[in-house]
């Protein structure tokens, strides 16, 4: 005689702390055996009041906070925020600084995609691909460190330009890094793209239709995997993207596998963009014979304090490595000439009272950068999609309101639709392809 088994669904908490959660987020899933019947996503575990903090600080002080939004590609956040404030200001930036911003954004995009692909492959058991990609990412981090002085919390851009010029040997560094990345990508491609296990778990899982993606305001590789060729760099070009030639890869099925392929191709396109930008970029200053002209920064400050300022401003200060590339000779090409937005070069601050006052005016509370009253929204293409900054100014030295449109917020809102009806095991690749970044999602 057959006896009917009594079945009932089970509530399963995935997260907030779970090895396959990229950060802390909680998915409450109602399971029927291995199948997800219903699910709910709970976010906010990494909320650090970015928007509130931004209202309390000066315009320049917000830049370090933006590093901590999407900490896998912090340079794009820096660039986005500065572009929004510059729009509010009506500032024009120099050509070289725009190229530098493009180059650094694209390097960041590559690191982001490498992390995303590496981590999601690792969660499916492909640890080798993860190690290869992280090893290749290291070459980029070394480049980023050479330019900005830091690996992660880079705070590289300034309102009106960037902190310092590219270091000598940057081109060669890029060439070598790209050689490494291309060879690693080839290996990863060989390891994953036709790998039976990987394909079986990625294809036809986490499928989203074009209409649903648009209704949820999803952008970036996630939207492009459904066949929509929306890319902010193409749709509303900013910086010098309109002068550069690149392709926007699109998928077809909107599943995890297409998203993986999109990201792989986007890395190649980013490399292409950097190579083109490096070729087009106007040359930096030529180093002349600096014999006897370079003095330690402390000596410069001491001399100025003694009043021996004659000819001092013409010399170059040798300062801390974190300020590399911010010399006076670099300044004309990397910073705006608008004195209301630029920080003076360190040589001017150290050697003259005018420079010191200018610096004081830009840094002190109640002074600083003051864009005219108004509001501006600036979208840039982040690694996960449209990253927008909406800045409101009341004419004082502090932003009245800074709103970030985080691209993965929209994807996380749609996540239940992607995982409902699938199996528990499918949550892992789907969630991996979301590339959720807690800092950006919860701000």
């Amino acid at each position, binding site marked *: 005689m057959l006896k009917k088994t009594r079945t009932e669904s089970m509530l399963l908490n995935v997260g907030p702390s779970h090895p396959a959660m990229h950060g802390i987020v909680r998915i409450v899933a109602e399971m029927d055996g291995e199948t997800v019947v219903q699910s709910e996503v709970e976010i*906010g575990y990494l909320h650090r009041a970015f928007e509130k903090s931004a209202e309390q600080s000066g315009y320049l002080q917000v830049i370090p906070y933006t590093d901590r939004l999407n900490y896998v590609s912090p340079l794009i956040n820096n660039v986005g925020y500065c572009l929004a404030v510059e729009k509010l200001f009506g500032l*024009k930036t120099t050509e070289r600084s725009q190229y530098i911003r493009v180059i650094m954004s694209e390097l960041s995009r590559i690191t982001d995609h490498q992390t995303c692909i590496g981590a999601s492959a690792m969660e499916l058991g492909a640890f080798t691909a993860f190690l290869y990609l992280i090893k290749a990412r290291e070459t980029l981090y070394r480049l980023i460190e050479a330019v900005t002085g830091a690996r992660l919390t880079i705070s590289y851009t300034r309102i009106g330009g960037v902190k310092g010029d590219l270091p000598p040997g940057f081109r060669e560094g890029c060439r070598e890094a790209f050689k490494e990345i291309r060879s690693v990508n080839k290996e990863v491609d060989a390891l994953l793209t036709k790998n039976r296990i990987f394909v079986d778990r990625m294809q036809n899982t986490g499928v989203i239709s074009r209409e649903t993606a648009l*209704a949820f305001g999803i952008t970036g590789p996630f939207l492009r995997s459904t066949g929509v060729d929306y890319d902010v760099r193409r*749709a509303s070009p900013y910086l010098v993207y309109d002068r550069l030639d690149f392709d926007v890869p699109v998928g077809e099925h909107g599943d995890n596998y297409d998203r993986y392929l999109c990201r792989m191709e986007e890395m190649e396109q980013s490399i292409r963009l950097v190579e083109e930008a490096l070729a087009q970029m106007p040359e930096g200053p030529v180093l002349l014979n600096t014999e006897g002209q370079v003095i330690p920064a402390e000596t410069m400050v001491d001399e100025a304090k003694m009043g021996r300022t004659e000819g001092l401003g013409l010399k170059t200060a040798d300062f801390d490595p974190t300020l590399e590339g911010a010399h006076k000779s670099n300044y004309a090409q990397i910073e705006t*000439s608008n004195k209301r937005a630029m920080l003076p070069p360190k040589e001017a601050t150290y050697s003259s009272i005018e420079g010191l006052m200018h610096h004081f*005016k830009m840094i002190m509370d109640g002074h600083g950068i003051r864009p005219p009253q*108004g*509001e501006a929204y600036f979208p840039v293409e982040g690694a996960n999609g449209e990253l*927008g900054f*909406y800045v409101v100014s009341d004419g004082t030295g502090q932003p009245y309101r800074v709103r970030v449109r985080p691209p993965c917020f929209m994807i996380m809102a749609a996540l239940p639709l992607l995982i409902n009806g699938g199996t528990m095991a499918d949550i892992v690749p789907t969630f991996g392809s979301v590339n959720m970044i807690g800092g950006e999602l919860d701000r």
Partner: protein
Amino acid sequence: MAISIRNLSTTLMHSRKMTMEQKSGLHIKLQQEFPGAVLSVHDQHGDETVTTKRENLLEVIRHLKEDPAFDLNVLIDITAVDGLGMKTKPRFEMVYHFYSLAKKHRLRVKVKIDEKDAVMPTLTSLWPIADWLEREVWDMFGICFEGHPDLKRILMYEEFTGHPLRKDYPYSKRQPLIGPKHA
């Protein structure tokens, strides 16, 4: 030190020139079509913006979504601004950003609402993403959304009191730590 504003005015003119070229005039067009609903328009820094009455918001937005001339099919963002620090009246301003995928243009729609009557119609029937975005506005500003299916906090926790992005919420205010409920 005297700071020359000459540089500033030339760059401002430059940005205005750019604005002229990019303009597609959506805000003017909308004002002509809904003279009773649109209160004011501007295109500062090239961002075309309309301010509408709250009672007409749904009607205007449905038109923006469905009329092929506007075709604003993507809801980019919903946020709010608390005008307390600027002493604007009414206090709150809802800010909606829209984008058209086909026409590649953007429009910002704003609605001004009073503190005592901080209730907005929900957009969840038109865009599912409005669900989470409106929850965030509720969480941060305490603005209610009428007809929202599940209006609860999203970034803060249930036990949190107050709405942190309001200008009268002190930045350094601390709230008691909460532990596990059944400990």
